[in-house]
């Protein structure tokens, strides 16, 4: 088979990336992002996105060229990159030219004049030639980056990624730092602009990361070796120090970062709880449950009904008493769900559980049960947790007074949520290592064989449903007290889908995977509320990319890990 001409392949790459760039424009990203800076007064996020597209066109073309040509000729790599970037720029230029003649806006809402202005750097359609020019340069740089030696390329890539990350979340860092007091506030204003980094900040971050990265690549091996050479006691104390540090950071974090980060972490922790729950039913026992939000809802509603001083509160009992009850109720409902679907397998189970989740939501929000659950008006006035005693009832619609410390702020709930998540993670880990955990995994692998080996399917599956539900119920209980009100509209199918996704993205059956998955899929999007229009677009793209890049998950389960370790050892022995 004759190999493709590398130039033709570069043209193709350029065209494809150009189409992707047009997609990004039409989705509206370029225009919205052009209002945010990466480096203040120098380059906007919108411009950056386009530049990145051209740059990667050059990079991809260059890499492809290397695979097409037998002999490695740097010049052809550079030419390919240039051509690819040029064509990406040409496609965009074509868009501008066509857009100036035809009203594309009749179909695509974002084909605005502002977009064309952004594309031509406010220089008007007449200067559209600037686009292919920039493209060619960016493509050339992209191609050149491939030719850099590894020792330089890695630090530069890391530094670039870090700078973009800091720029993207600059608002968040800035606010957190400003809240620390005037010194930090000055530092913040030095590093961050209103919507991006300052030039100084960019340089500091960029050079800082390069320095650290270079240091690590030179000295990292020594440090690593140093640690391995430590005596056993030394390593143990190192470990203790690390754990102590983790605990210190975890304790201090909400105080430093303020309520928003605390709230985001609470949300993540709630999803960790749900994720750990579903990890039992799905990750361990292999029972696909697409209606997991039901247990979350049941936990939340139980706490709501038991502690609310609103119209639907039954009892004003303390939060601490309501939570165990909520967990038990969720557990019972887990059995209720589990019983009828015991005999249903595979994807039939998925849809049956999905139905269960929807039924719970519909009933909770329905007029029929509104006298009990508030219907669309929800349950409001849920009492905050109180460390100390609660005062007596005065009036039904007035909260009981907390004689002691009221845990009302997100920073307070943070501790409850994080501690719960840690405890539940421990429980899940113990369960996994127990006879029950093995039975679950056996069911996941082969239900019939497990049964033939004496595993009681009914009992084991029911326990999986019940314990999973209990964890989710705990999450729901904390959720209710965090928000202070519950509505059926919070209990959408999307929550269940999120939980399933985070388990798979984290690594099925893996407990640390749940935490990593929750941070990636729940925490990051929460931080991205500012770019709300593109939140789910990016979320969707991330899901696909993660599955393509790491189908086994970000932190695969121990079995996979042990396996890898084993092969490593074997390889070591052979060597």
């Amino acid at each position, binding site marked *: 088979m004759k190999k493709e001409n590398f130039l033709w392949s570069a043209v193709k790459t350029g065209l494809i990336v150009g189409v992707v760039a047009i*997609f990004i424009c*039409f*989705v*509206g*990203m370029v225009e919205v992002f052009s209002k945010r800076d990466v480096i203040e007064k120098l380059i906007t996020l919108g411009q950056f996105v386009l530049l990145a597209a051209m740059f990667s066109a050059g990079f991809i073309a260059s890499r492809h060229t290397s695979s097409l040509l037998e002999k490695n000729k740097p010049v052809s790599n550079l030419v390919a990159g240039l051509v690819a970037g040029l064509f990406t720029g040409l496609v965009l230029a074509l868009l501008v030219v066509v857009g100036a003649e035809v009203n594309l806006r009749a*179909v*695509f*809402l*974002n084909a605005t004049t502002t977009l064309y202005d952004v594309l031509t750097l406010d220089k008007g359609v007449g200067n559209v030639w600037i686009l292919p020019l920039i493209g060619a340069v960016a493509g050339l740089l992209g191609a050149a980056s491939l030719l850099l030696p590894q020792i330089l390329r890695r630090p530069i890539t890391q530094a670039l990624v870090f700078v973009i990350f800091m720029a993207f979340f600059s608002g968040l860092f800035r606010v957190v730092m400003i809240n620390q007091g005037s010194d930090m506030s000055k530092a913040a204003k030095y590093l961050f602009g209103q919507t991006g980094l300052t030039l100084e900040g960019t340089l500091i971050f960029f050079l800082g990361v390069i320095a650290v990265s270079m240091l690590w690549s030179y000295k990292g091996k020594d440090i690593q070796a140093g640690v391995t050479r430590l005596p056993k006691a030394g390593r143990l104390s190192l470990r203790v120090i690390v754990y102590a540090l983790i605990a210190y950071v975890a304790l201090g974090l909400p105080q430093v970062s303020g309520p928003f980060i605390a709230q985001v972490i609470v949300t993540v922790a709630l999803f960790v709880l749900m994720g750990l729950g579903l990890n039992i039913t*799905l990750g361990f026992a292999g029972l*696909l449950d697409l209606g997991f939000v039901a247990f979350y809802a049941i936990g939340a509603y139980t706490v709501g009904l038991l502690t609310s001083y609103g119209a639907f509160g039954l009892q004003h009992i303390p939060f601490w008493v309501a939570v165990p009850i909520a967990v038990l109720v969720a557990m019972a409902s887990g059995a209720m769900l589990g*019983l*009828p*679907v*015991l*005999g*249903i*397998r*595979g*994807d*039939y189970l*998925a*849809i*049956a559980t*999905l*139905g*269960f989740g*929807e*039924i719970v939501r*519909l*009933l909770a929000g*329905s*007029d*029929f049960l509104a006298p009990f659950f508030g219907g669309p008006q929800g349950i409001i006035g849920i009492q905050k947790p109180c460390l100390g005693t609660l005062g007596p009832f005065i009036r039904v619609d007035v909260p009981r007074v907390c004689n002691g410390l009221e845990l009302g702020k997100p920073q307070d709930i943070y501790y409850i949520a994080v501690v719960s998540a840690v405890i539940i993670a421990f429980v899940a880990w113990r369960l996994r290592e127990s006879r029950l955990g093995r039975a679950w995994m056996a069911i996941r692998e082969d239900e*019939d064989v497990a049964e033939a080996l004496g595993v*009681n399917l*009914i*009992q084991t599956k*029911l326990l999986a449903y019940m314990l999973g539900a209990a964890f989710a119920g705990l999450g729901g209980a904390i959720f209710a007290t965090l928000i202070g009100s519950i509505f059926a509209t919070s209990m959408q*199918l999307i929550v269940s*889908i999120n939980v*399933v*996704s985070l388990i*798979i*993205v984290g690594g*099925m059956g893996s407990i640390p995977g749940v935490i990593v998955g929750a941070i990636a899929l729940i925490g990051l999007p929460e931080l991205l509320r500012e770019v709300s*229009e*593109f939140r*789910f*677009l990016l*979320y*969707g*793209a*991330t*899901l*696909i990319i993660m*599955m*393509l890049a790491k*189908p*086994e998950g970000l932190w695969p389960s121990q079995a996979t890990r042990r396996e890898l370790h084993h092969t490593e050892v074997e390889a070591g022995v052979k060597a």
Partner: protein
Amino acid sequence: MRTSPGERLLDLAVSGVLWGFRILLVAAILIGTIATIRAGKYTSEQWIDFVVFGISQGSIYALIALGYTMVYGILRMINFAHGDIFMTGAFAAYFLATWMNGTGFIDSYPILGLLIPILFAMIVAGGIAMLVERIAYRPLRGAPRLVPLISAIGASFFLEYAFRGFFGPGVYAYPPIKALEGEWDILGIGILKVQVVVAVAAFIMMAILYSIVMFTKVGKAMRAVSESKDTAALMGIDVNRIIVSTFALGAAMAGAAGVLYSLIFRQVGFFMGFTPGIKAFTAAVLGGIGNIPGAMVGGLVLGIFESVGPSLFLEGLGITRPYQLKDAIAYTMLVMILLFRPSGILGERITTKKA
């Protein structure tokens, strides 16, 4: 070793609860039905109307369900983005039909004005589905079962919000076809023209699809691939091509469904695919997933249950605002059917190896 008394108690409890559940459901349905009928609130014409409404809704579910079921039959994978493929078809047809309406074409040639957008929607939806398959699914073939599911969920979000970016969060109104306004008299019952057209079109579409799968070479290859990819490959079938054409075919059905849906409900928006997608998936499972006639039966059963159920079962039980719980009925029905037939109405009995 004997079974312990505790275990026997559990067994007893399980079967007791299961049977209790079944009996309760059947009893609730019977009592509700009898009470409703005795109350005599509805005339027989109205009952017929309920069923007709159910059929037209159900035939759209069925059309979307076909795509789910075909892809599942071949890849054992839930194509979560299928509902959004349906949405892309509706959008494509909307823009074409609006333009055609502006030129007066639809009024002068109503049949072509209906067919051309459908064809266009099928092509666009098929194309997008092929693209999605190429990017998000094909590299994952052979990965654990849930990995493609997550990728499909990602694709679903991506499509939804890409279209939201393109066309905004508002709704668009599908242009009306004047020739389809009013009723036809069929066997003495007045039925809306649109509904007749939609139901008939849906059935024709399903018949075409069924004959493609049963009688053409591609169809045979599809069935072969669904039995065993390896064997099919050994027989000289290009498995990749067959999978792609399955996606395209299923998506084309969804695209057509998108147009029919827009004809009845007149609103096109970026989120329109989500609920019908879930419902169609339910319908596919109800009928027995992987089974083409099953998808048709499942869609119709679901549509009719949704339409008739709230009035027939719930009102008699004294439940207020029963239509709010329409979906709850649909899902309860589903669970009940799965309780009696764990692999759907027309599904294969043996599900052991499929999961």
